[in-house]
């Protein structure tokens, strides 16, 4: 069964007809040619397909495209400006926050969404005082980024990159 939907992807309005079974991830990659979000586990466990949906980080593999008619989607590719990287992506480069790079677009989108959440003083599992403003120390960054796996194990530098980007 098919449905015609509109997605606003990285600032561009795109209309497409999808089978209802198409995930948002597959719509972005296979239908719209946006290969920035990656398919890792395809079960919501690895975070490599993370995008910003209406500004919030989600895994695009666990939601059907048809459920997001009219939505705004930002991928890591869409975070960049005309000729410069997004500050979070820049920090990943500066700190070697990757090795093979496959998880990186998901890591970057997740970090951007996470910084927004922390900026709004959303607590995390490791926040001692639920009512106090959030201080993004390394333990907070690690906990908040636990939904993004890096099989190369670049975590130390990912944390460093996000620490810098958070300043």
């Amino acid at each position, binding site marked *: *069964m098919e449905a015609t939907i509109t997605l606003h992807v990285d600032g561009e309005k795109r209309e497409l007809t999808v089978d*209802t*079974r198409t995930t948002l991830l597959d719509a972005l990659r296979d239908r719209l040619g946006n290969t920035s979000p990656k398919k890792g586990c395809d079960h*919501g466990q690895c*975070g490599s397909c993370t995008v910003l949906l209406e500004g919030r980080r989600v895994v695009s593999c666990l*939601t059907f495209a048809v*459920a997001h008619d009219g939505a705004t989607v930002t991928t890591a590719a869409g975070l960049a400006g005309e000729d410069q990287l997004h500050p979070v992506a820049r920090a990943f480069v500066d700190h070697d926050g990757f090795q093979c790079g496959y998880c990186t677009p998901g890591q970057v989108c997740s970090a951007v969404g996470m910084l927004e959440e922390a900026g709004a*003083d*959303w*607590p995390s599992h490791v926040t001692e005082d639920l009512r106090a403003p959030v201080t993004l120390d390394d333990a907070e960054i690690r906990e908040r980024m636990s939904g993004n796996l890096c099989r190369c194990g670049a975590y130390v530098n990912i944390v460093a990159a996000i620490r810098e980007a958070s300043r």
Partner: protein
Amino acid sequence: MKPFAYTRPAEAADAVAEVAANPDAAYIGGGTNLVDHMKLGIAEPTSLVDVRDLLSHRVEKLPDGRIRVGAAVPNSDLAAHPEIREHYPVLSQALLAGASGQLRNAATTGGNLLQRTRCVYFQNRAMPCNKREPGTGCAAIEGYGRYNAVLGASEHCVATHPSDMAVALTALGAQVRVLGPSGERTIDLPGLHRLPGDTPQRDTILEHGDLITAVDLPRLPLAARSAYRKVRDRASYAFALVSVAAALRVVDGTVEDVRVAFGGLAHAPWRAHRAEEELRGGPATEEAFRDAARAELADAETGPGNAFKVPMAVNTLAATLRDLSTEETS
């Protein structure tokens, strides 16, 4: 994945009528559990009725002091809500102990309550499972047992309920508001989830077509001093081996009031009435906490894979109550 029709009705009553009329229809909210199950072939709805937009996204204070949480409130928003952080910290902590930031942004309050077990045999179509396919047997009983239930299991199913949030709501005695084909009703937790018995395919007492519309939190001053403690195989982003949701009031060294629920031990969030009774009116000491936990676990049945859960549950409850009673005096 089997083809399915997708609709997004504007009114809850229309959604209920649509699902009630088709035995193979299902509601979808955040989709974080259902979409995965559709990929795995363990859920095969022919029609998805999207209720994310029609259900309430609000957390509101009712005139009588209760808090009403709309069924579509995302887990992350509920955890971060100032009212919840202040008056029901156990609920914030439970939500934050579950899943990942991305999943909490998508997962809804109603969907979290209805998420299904992570038993590896349930999630694998190649294996027998009475919950997925009644009558085929239970591969978990003789298999990998680390996550198996120790309380209230049956010869047909040893699965555990995976939700952290539901454990907190069970300790709080929250009410679940349901709209069904014959109207509205409320279910007091822990009455929503059931033990497996002879029908492990049923996780809850809900009937086909029933739609959770909201969760009401009681006015409960006790909950201002409450906590959720989760023990798992990784520091983050893993399901509970054992978890405890507790609220405690100690006056002059005596337990005046207490609420306890366990996660990871049973097919349903486990309200520890027996432990609560043992504790109430008694001394707020480590020894008393341990005795109460042991009383609750007295009927536990374990195998080689999950025997550790009994001492772990005792230790976890004792540690949670110790922390809460220490805060009290400081």
